[in-house]
């Protein structure tokens, strides 16, 4: 009974991914269309070496990759800063409002990501309601003073800060929900025990609650990191400038829009390898954390 589904995944997931590998280790024809080499014995490492050489010599691929890591790291930091208190309140203090708050936290999942971005594009247009409000309450001035915004009302013309805030807005729901689950599971008696033994509320939080929610923090970070690393549409929509071009934009430009599909396939492999490492690290840390918690 499993056969049709297994065959489907084999062809459209595994073979498709193998096609990326074979194109990356393949060649281009005279019309610069990719020619995959299906037999691993015939693989041509030329394009892969070219991309790795670009990284080694601090070429543009390294620049966009480092920028991607910076943007994602900052976005995740902000997501945690905002998301942890929200998750903490929902899981431990919402009381009879818990169901309603949870529902409100889930609502963004039901709204198309691009519509959520469209909402901000309308708000942050030069004469949009958001731009005017940020101007009136002085946030615009603070951003200009901090160097996070280059001109008045210029939120959407190539600001790294706008891309990071859009990332936070777009992906934070993915981080909050696993955190709520993790914080919800913590046994109140463990915190009470710490308090009874003389821990201050702060110390009880840092030494009991925070370590016990580590698995949820990590799960949330992975859930937002994976789509952020492959994102190209958010920078396109809220910035549309090469100053905020990320690895996703580079891949998109080479594969979907352009005719450098072989290089695009190599960069897709680089991204996949990086994310695979991240996943292994995550699985190992989670296993260790779970083992520690069970001891």
């Amino acid at each position: 009974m499993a056969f049709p589904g297994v065959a489907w995944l084999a062809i459209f997931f595994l073979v498709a991914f193998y096609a990326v590998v074979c194109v990356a280790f393949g060649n281009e024809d005279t019309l610069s269309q990719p020619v995959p080499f299906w037999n691993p014995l015939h693989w041509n490492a030329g394009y892969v070496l070219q991309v790795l050489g670009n990284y080694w010599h601090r070429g543009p691929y390294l620049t966009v990759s480092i920028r991607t890591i910076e943007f994602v790291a900052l976005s995740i930091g902000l997501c945690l800063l905002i998301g942890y208190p929200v998750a903490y309140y929902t899981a431990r203090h919402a009381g009879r409002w818990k169901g309603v708050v949870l529902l409100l936290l889930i609502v963004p999942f039901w709204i198309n990501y691009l519509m959520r971005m469209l909402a901000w594009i309308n708000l942050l247009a030069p004469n949009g309601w958001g731009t005017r409000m940020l101007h009136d309450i002085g946030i615009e001035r603070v951003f200009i003073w901090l160097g996070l915004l280059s001109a008045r009302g210029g939120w959407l013309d190539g600001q790294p800060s706008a891309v990071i805030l859009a990332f936070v807005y777009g992906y934070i729901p993915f981080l909050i929900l696993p955190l709520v689950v993790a914080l919800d599971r913590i046994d109140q008696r463990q915190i009470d025990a710490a308090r009874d033994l003389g821990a201050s509320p702060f110390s009880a939080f840092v030494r009991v609650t925070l370590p016990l929610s580590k698995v949820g923090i990590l799960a949330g970070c992975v859930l937002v990191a994976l789509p952020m690393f492959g994102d190209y549409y958010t920078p396109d929509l809220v910035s549309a400038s090469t100053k905020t071009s990320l690895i996703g934009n580079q891949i998109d430009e080479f594969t979907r829009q352009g005719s450098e599909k072989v290089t695009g396939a190599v960069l897709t492999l680089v991204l996949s390898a990086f994310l695979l490492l991240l996943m292994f690290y995550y699985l190992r840390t989670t296993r260790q954390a779970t083992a520690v918690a069970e001891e």
Partner: protein
Amino acid sequence: MINWLRNPWGKPRWLKLITIVYILWSIVPVAIAILFAFNAGRSRTTWQGFSFRWFTGASGSVLHDPQYQGALKHTLILAVICVAVATPLGVALALGLQRWRGPGGGTVNTVMLLPLVTPEIVMGVALLLLFLRVFPEIGLGTPAQAIGQVTFTLSYVVVIVRGRLTSIGPEYEEAAADLGAPPHDQLFRVVLPLLIPAIIASAAVAFALSIDDFVVTQYLSGNASTTTVSMLLYASARGAPTPALNAIATVALLITLATLTLAFLVYRRFASGREAAAVAALDI
């Protein structure tokens, strides 16, 4: 209030404030975008009065402009195909995995979960190259888009159906077997009826995922005739479109919300609240 002024750091007060501000921040911008779908003027930033012209007006509306009408129609066609293929395929795969005897079950299970953690751009590139180089006779366009959507929706269907299978347990099936029901009857007269809420819920989630999908659909699009609502939003959000863009996004949102609410209600009617909440949270 006076209490709060006396001790603003008294525990959950500031947590409550952050949560309320967060929820407003996450929902109000979208509410404003929906409001502007009803703007009487051409602006998406200045309110000029209430009207339905961008939904049903004679020119440039979702209902009458060929570009918008076509995108909405194509989105719905893809969603229907996606549900029609992914639901039976996923239910069968879930049942198959549940009964898997012998080696390979673990591997299949891992591969089945991989699409959930693969960034969409990787799947997009992989499927693009597959349809360009391995199946050029399929090529890009509606069939490729439908296949791509089924590939990542399948995992969601399997996860939902397996959750329900686990909570049902093997007892009913064993009882049917003890009473002499042949395997065929055990499946069609015992297991499948018990699975109906999960099947409806997974079909709804597949429908919503298909409507909201962007990356895979865009990568496998052949030409302008295979533009979906999401692709239209991406292509024209930064241009100078009319509030019809907000209107078409609103229509798509209403369809998604109606589908998911219906599925949630059906599921809650049959299954426990916790399971239903898990399904609601799954639509990511």
